[in-house]
């Protein structure tokens, strides 16, 4: 019996659209409840995110983080693993970047530091994912719980390291010293200005390009290599994987290494691209937002880029909104983010089943 098929656009476009609209609708109600006009709010939000060069720059800068964490969550998800530890992996990834920059910025030129810092981000992020991955693969401990625990451990570790070892003497804020410019990732506006293109001054930097490259690499990896084949097999059926002679423990571990590495790349954007020093809490929830991004983006790199831009727009537009309407805090964006996770993740079947049912019935009739 071949089953009647649901048109592709339903799954790829219609259902995510309905979910996000629902999230917006409920957020609109919240805004209404606090006595502001949702339409006006949406106007500020859209203007802030896309209305001017600098705004777009900020949107894409935030999107860079979301691409990294979104990819991180989705790579693991493709292999059937829920990596909820992106936050901690990003944090430790930033440590990797920071250590490389602090060690080399005085002595080495940019083209030596940059690749090493990128490797540092990946290796540190991956290392932080390795332990939960190892424990899941070899000792059967549940990766969701262990990665949550590792988020807390990462945050304590970073406090300890930064406060006790890396903080610059005499500085109040718990930051390392600011890196020399040789360890700064170029801003895109600095890159474009000599070409006669003014894109406004924003933190958007070269990490965005790295993020896009990662998307292509992840896409190729998942759908066009034997490793991708193995991880997709494992993600759909663990028994089929062991039948196929796939070393599931090994796949689990390296998938988590890739996932952790991708999350760690947030450090490139934040530490090397924007803050130019190692500081506390620069991950600011991007790791958790990665869950929403990968859900929205249906675990496909293109979807993830789009979802990341959407979330970047929410962050940037949300700041603009809070700036224009002081009654609204930027936390409204966190509410929207949560609602997106709720509707397109937890409640995905609510509409999906009905809509698909509708199309199946139409196909049958």
């Amino acid at each position, binding site marked *: 019996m071949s089953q009647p098929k649901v048109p592709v656009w339903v799954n790829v476009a219609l259902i995510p659209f309905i979910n996000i609209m629902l999230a917006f609708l409920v957020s609109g109600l919240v805004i209404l409840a606090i006595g502001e006009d949702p339409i006006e709010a949406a106007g500020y939000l859209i203007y802030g995110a896309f209305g001017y060069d600098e705004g777009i720059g900020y949107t894409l800068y935030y999107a860079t983080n979301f691409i990294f964490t979104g990819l991180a969550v989705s790579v693991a998800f493709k292999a059937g693993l829920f990596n909820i530890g992106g936050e901690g992996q990003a944090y430790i990834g930033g440590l990797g970047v920071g250590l490389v920059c602090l060690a080399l910025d005085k002595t080495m030129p940019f083209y030596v530091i940059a690749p090493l810092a990128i490797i540092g981000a990946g290796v540190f992020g991956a290392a932080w994912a390795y332990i939960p991955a190892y424990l899941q693969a070899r000792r059967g401990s549940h990766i969701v719980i262990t990665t949550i625990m590792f988020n807390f451990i990462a945050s304590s570790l970073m406090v300890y390291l930064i406060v006790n070892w890396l903080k610059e003497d005499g500085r109040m804020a718990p930051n390392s010293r600011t890196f020399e410019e040789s360890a700064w990732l170029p801003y895109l506006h600095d890159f474009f200005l000599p070409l006669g293109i003014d894109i406004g001054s924003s933190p958007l930097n070269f990490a965005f390009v790295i993020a896009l490259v990662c998307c292509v690499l992840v896409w190729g990896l998942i759908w066009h290599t034997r490793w991708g084949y193995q991880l997709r097999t494992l993600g759909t059926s663990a028994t089929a994987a062991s039948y196929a002679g796939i070393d599931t423990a090994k796949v689990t571990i390296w998938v988590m290494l890739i996932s952790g590495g991708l999350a760690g790349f947030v450090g490139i954007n934040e530490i090397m691209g924007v803050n130019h020093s190692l500081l506390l809490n620069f991950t600011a929830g991007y790791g958790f937002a990665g869950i929403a991004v990968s859900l929205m983006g249906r675990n496909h790199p293109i979807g993830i880029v789009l979802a990341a831009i959407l979330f970047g727009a929410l962050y940037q537009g949300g700041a603009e909104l809070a700036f224009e309407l002081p009654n609204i805090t930027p*936390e409204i964006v*966190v509410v929207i983010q949560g609602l997106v996770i709720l509707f397109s993740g937890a409640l995905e079947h609510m509409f999906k089943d009905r809509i698909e049912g509708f199309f199946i019935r139409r196909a049958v009739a």
Partner: protein
Amino acid sequence: MFETLILMLDATLRVSTPLILAALAGLYAERSGIVDIGLEGKILGSAFAAAAGAAVYGSAWIGLCFGILASVGLAMIHGFACITHRGDHIVSGVAINTVVAGLTVTLGLDWFSMGGQTPALSGDARFTDITLPFADALASVPVIGQIYSNLLSGHNILVYLAFAMVPVTYWVIYKTRFGLRLRAVGENPQAVDTAGISVAFIRYRALIICGILCGIAGAYLSTAHNAGFLKDMSAGKGYMALAALIFGKWRPVPVLLACLLFGFLDAVAVRLQGVELPGIGEVPVQAIEVLPYVLTVLLLAGFIGKAVGPKAVGRPYVKERE
């Protein structure tokens, strides 16, 4: 030395109270097969609602009711997603935590214009400490009297409630019809369904209990332990309760012990800040802070015992595949 110990244990009781409540809440949920990573969000939501209610109506009890209502409401959203719509439990929990983190601040700012905080509570708007009978009279009796009057007496009612919930939970889980069904539904929901019992109804009831307990935990934070709501005031307590739940292997008494251990570590960490220990030197507070998480990971990895949860936990109960 003995007095210090008493005071440390006294602090332990205060700090572990929300953990105990939340971990027991998680116990009901997970024993029924629902993973509840949203404990954190429920605590936070209830802390906010309780403080808001107490601030507006000037009564801690009214605040408590608000807190419980908010928390049960969140639990019902979790149920709606996970039970009715077979959603992923983890995703639903993350969603709830995220929404609450944003919503409490947004509403708080609008209602109280204090940057997301609630007004400071005082008087009847807070749960105040209760002195047990004869506590003052016995205070001078060495050891026993000190334990009684300094350690056991002088907590607010929610602390006693939390500890009372442990035997109550034990009784409910192991000695009642509801408990039998609850345990069964977390192990094999099909068996329960074919025995003529509604899986969904049991799970919803478990989540309501979970909501109530988290509600009390949240109200404790904002109206008893503290005097008002602060943004993100749950500060990971929900996750730590989850860790305690696993550490206690989903059984009431071991869970209590795990909570006390974690609470004790917290109380120690507060007091060890910057203190030189003889022979060890200064222990970084962070090292003590992470101990509960590290211990739980070690347990999960099977290095100290083995944690095996209810068999059907986290798996949506699907009767008909469409």
